[in-house]
């Protein structure tokens, strides 16, 4: 068992399931000979053939739409979108069809499919290559939104996503595709969906983050620890449905919470988490749920992206606000 990166874990999970399940097919732009622009499908076409690993024409709506047709006839399609910034032409098929076929036909047809897309900033990419719009997908009824944050979770959650009988969008934090290595057994064991992972225990404040942002969040937690502040760090992993119970369990200890995400703040996932915490754990809260997020502006070209992305400094500052909180923040 060797150490592998997150993107290798994705490849490994795809390969495992292609081997195990003849119904599975993989397709997208450049996923064949090229192995995907991030090499997530490296070697799969050579190994499983052109019938099962296919380059599509350049059309995201096509990728989303044919997946629906394949899935309702019993295949397990896994479609790759090259970057999250190019997924929007596919939204109609995802929202209007993939997530509705089961309900619309009262269970007669279903869509056991996975849409994969690398997401997030921080790799100095061109415009549209650094988006984080998970909240758009989280608002869609019937969709599962899954984000891995380590090689092991990428492997286990992707297997779970592929085996899930309903549509899953699997968002891969490309900034950490190759920055972390981990031993991951290629055992075909899935991790549970709809389930939070506690990455660090702490009693003073609960930090919630996912994907690449967990790197900054864990660093912030360490920095805080040096000041004697023990942060609990939670990776929701499945953003929808959200495992709010685990989050509240943590809040029972800490009473304070900061949500961190790259995406723009307004109507982002942080809002939903804050709202649910309010609804389910109002009495536990010693301070408002703080959000440290991307700004409500367009993800900038890369020269300025560091100002956009939540940094360790911003997270630490947010945590301190949550800790110091005793009277309302100015509304200036």
């Amino acid at each position, binding site marked *: 068992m060797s150490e592998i990166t997150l993107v290798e874990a994705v490849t490994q999970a795809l390969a495992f399931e292609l081997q195990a399940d003849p119904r599975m097919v993989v397709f997208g732009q450049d996923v064949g000979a090229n192995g995907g622009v991030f090499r997530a499908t490296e070697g799969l076409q050579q190994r499983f053939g052109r019938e099962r690993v296919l380059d599509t024409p350049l059309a995201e*709506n096509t990728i989303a739409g044919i997946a629906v047709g394949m899935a309702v006839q019993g295949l397990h399609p896994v479609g790759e979108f090259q970057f999250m910034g190019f997924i929007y032409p596919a939204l109609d098929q995802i929202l209007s*069809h993939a997530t509705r076929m089961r*309900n*619309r036909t009262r269970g007669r047809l279903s869509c056991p499919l996975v849409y994969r897309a690398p997401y997030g900033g921080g790799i100095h990419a061109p415009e549209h290559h650094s988006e984080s719009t998970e909240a758009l997908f989280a608002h869609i009824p*019937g969709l599962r939104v899954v984000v891995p944050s380590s090689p092991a979770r990428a492997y286990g959650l992707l297997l779970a996503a592929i085996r899930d009988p*309903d549509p899953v969008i699997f968002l891969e934090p490309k900034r950490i595709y190759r920055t972390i290595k981990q031993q991951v057994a290629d055992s075909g064991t899935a991790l549970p969906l709809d389930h939070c992972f506690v990455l660090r225990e702490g009693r003073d404040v609960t930090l919630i983050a996912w994907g690449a942002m967990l790197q900054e969040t864990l660093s912030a937690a360490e920095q805080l620890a040096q000041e004697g502040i023990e942060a609990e760090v939670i990776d929701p992993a499945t953003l929808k449905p959200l495992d709010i119970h685990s989050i509240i369990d943590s809040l029972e200890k800490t009473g304070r919470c900061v949500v961190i995400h790259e995406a723009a703040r307004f109507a982002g996932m942080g809002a939903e988490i804050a709202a649910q915490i309010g609804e389910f754990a109002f009495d536990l809260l010693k301070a408002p749920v703080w959000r440290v997020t991307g700004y409500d502006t367009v993800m900038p070209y890369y020269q300025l992206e560091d100002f956009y992305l939540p940094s360790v400094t911003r997270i630490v500052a947010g945590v301190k606000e949550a800790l110091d909180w005793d009277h309302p923040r100015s509304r200036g």
Partner: protein
Amino acid sequence: MHKPRMQLLASFDIAYLQYLDERGSPTQVLPDFATADSLCRAYRQMLLARLVDGRAVKLQRTGRLGTYPSSLGQEAIGVGIGSAMQASDVYCPYYRETGALLERGVSIEEIFAIWGGDERGQNFQRAPHDLPICVPIASQILHAAGVAFALQYQNASQPLRVAVTCAGDGATSKGDFYEAINLAGVWKLPLVVIINNNQWAISVSRNAQTAALSLAQKAIAAGIPSLQVDGNDVIAVHWAVNNGIERARRGEGPSLIEAVSYRLSDHTTADDASRYCPQSEREAAEKLEPLGRLKQYLCSQGVWSSDHQIALEEELAQVLERALRHYNHAPKDAPNALFDHLYARLPEAFYDQYDNLLNCSESHS
């Protein structure tokens, strides 16, 4: 002025097919399948479609059905498609499909249920693999391409099961249509796409959709064969669809058929076509409608008569009454259905909402 010399790179022809003209006279020797039996059957199915449509409109007028899109005048398309398909093929319908749905085994009650605001209508009991009717224009054509891929994948040897789909003239303006035929072409999928060119997309006329002379020629963009047929001639439609299906079954890939017809009704019961459609145009189109010409042909062959007609109308009236009784007496769908089919298994996160729904619906009833 300078005129450059150019080489001819490629040439394309678009052909038109008709067997029965508007008076029911054959314009050429009919194909073998056009037996008295099969044509009488086609006539029956077309009449049934027309009666179901007419009844649906009436039900809407009396508040027992929601908005309904009649296929009046386009019955030959649905029946031509349905009669050319095998049960094991897969159909991906749009919403104006009474004729094809009936052919596929979808029940009249199911059709009424859909437009009566009840998802259970889409749970086709006798067409379990067909897709539900699709409302977002042209999006079903991509599903059909995916279905075709699946059929090819699951049954790599020929003859293949094939996917068949239909869309309106308006649908040809949408990217989905083009993307789907382009993919089908390059992946050589067993797919037949039929365009019901009924000349209108609500109030927008065929000529306001595209500068293309025909909709059939749009297939050239995808590099696939195509054909325009008289969509009011069920023999021509059947021949073309069957031909497309047979090509596809042999692994020769997809094709496109433009079936030229006319929408002899409002767009839906919510529409008023007199706002935009010249009365004279509609009247001219009425003369071309598909049932009359087929009946005339059958009569001319001595295989149909007013006795046959009366008997058929009686039979179909009963079929319709039975369906209506079923529709009227079907128990209402339960509110919990809102969540029961969303996921295979409702995630815990939504138990709260499920409970809330049940509580509220109790107090509601």
